[in-house]
């Protein structure tokens, strides 16, 4: 469904990605691992259409997305992808429910309807109590759950997660991870998670190892 074909990307003089190819099937949960500086985040950003590769193609459902004009690409990210950032990156001035409703509002849905959907998602992720609290009042785990709800609320085809447990202690991190993956599995949403933690990678159906911007020979892809 989502495919990278010989994708390369350079930042300054460092080659972040060199001819990386891979394919992700519908509803599949994939972990991208490797030592820091291996190009994990760059690969995720290329797949998510946040960064354009210098060469190679990124294809979603048979359609090349790396050549789309910025407006189309932005709309595609909004409608087909969800992103969970390492530190949540929620808007601190909004309440938890408003943060979750935000992507729906940007899809021009009615405010009342968007807030109702947001409430459902918060309930699904067990953080209904936090709905009317500002982000600053939430614990790290609650924040990450709200971030997961925000990424899933539009019903995306793929959710990208950058070190989804990065800022959490171990058991809290596991709970968030399971919440993300269980919901994604139930909705047949594909998940691409970037992580340096093998125990997080073990939650995936499949692992893609990156080393120095490439999938090393003999490694699974």
């Amino acid at each position, binding site marked *: 469904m989502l495919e990278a074909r010989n994708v390369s990307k350079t930042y300054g003089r460092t080659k972040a990605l060199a001819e990386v190819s891979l394919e992700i099937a519908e509803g599949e949960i994939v972990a991208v691992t490797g030592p820091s500086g291996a190009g994990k985040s760059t690969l995720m950003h290329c797949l998510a259409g946040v960064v354009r590769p210098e060469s190679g193609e990124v294809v979603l459902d048979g359609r090349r997305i790396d050549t789309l004009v910025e407006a189309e690409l932005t709309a595609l990210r909004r409608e087909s992808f969800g992103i969970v950032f390492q530190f949540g990156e929620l808007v601190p001035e909004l309440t938890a429910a408003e943060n979750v409703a935000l992507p729906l509002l940007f899809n021009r849905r009615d405010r009342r309807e968007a807030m109702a959907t947001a409430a459902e998602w918060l309930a699904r992720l067990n953080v209904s109590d936090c709905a009317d609290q500002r982000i600053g009042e939430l614990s790290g785990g609650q924040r990450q759950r709200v971030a997961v709800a925000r990424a899933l609320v539009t019903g995306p085809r793929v959710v990208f997660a950058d070190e989804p447990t990065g800022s959490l202690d171990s058991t809290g991190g596991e709970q968030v991870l399971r919440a993300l993956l269980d919901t994604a599995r139930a909705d047949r949403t594909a998940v691409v998670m970037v992580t340096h933690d*093998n*125990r997080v990678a*073990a*939650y995936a159906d499949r*692992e893609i190892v990156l080393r120095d911007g490439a999938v090393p020979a*003999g490694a699974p892809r």
Partner: protein
Amino acid sequence: MSTGHVLLGLLVERPKHGYELKKEHDHRLAGAKPLPYGQVYATLQRLERDGFAEVSGTRQEGGPERTVYSITDGGRTELERWLNTVEPPAPYVTSPLFSRVAVAGTAADGFLMRQREAHLARMRELTAQKASDVPAQVLAADYALQHLDADLRWIETALARMKEDDLA
């Protein structure tokens, strides 16, 4: 003699017969190798010989008649001593994984990649087991996962060091 100590620990709650002890051992130590039935009786006899346990009667529940064992005061003292003994922190590196790499040197590269795969596959299984939410199983899976993770991280370091040596 740690199997004996585990059995003593299980006997503290109440007197039990051999089959009961085997079942509880396998349940509580979910990730460990299951205890062979024969070893249960051999261990119990040794405990009896050392004065840590004694036969306190027989019980029949539908099946054959079973001998019930209970813990003695000496057994309690011994259990207490064992529980409070600090485990010596791995004085020697003993792992087939380590030995193989130490012998193969830089040639272990391909092997390590395959070993990584195997480790991760096992970690995936263990992670799936954790979904059961049975506390003993989760505890055992966590233990195994963290040890496998340590292996994996060592493999990563080993690969990186080999690359450095290649460049040097």
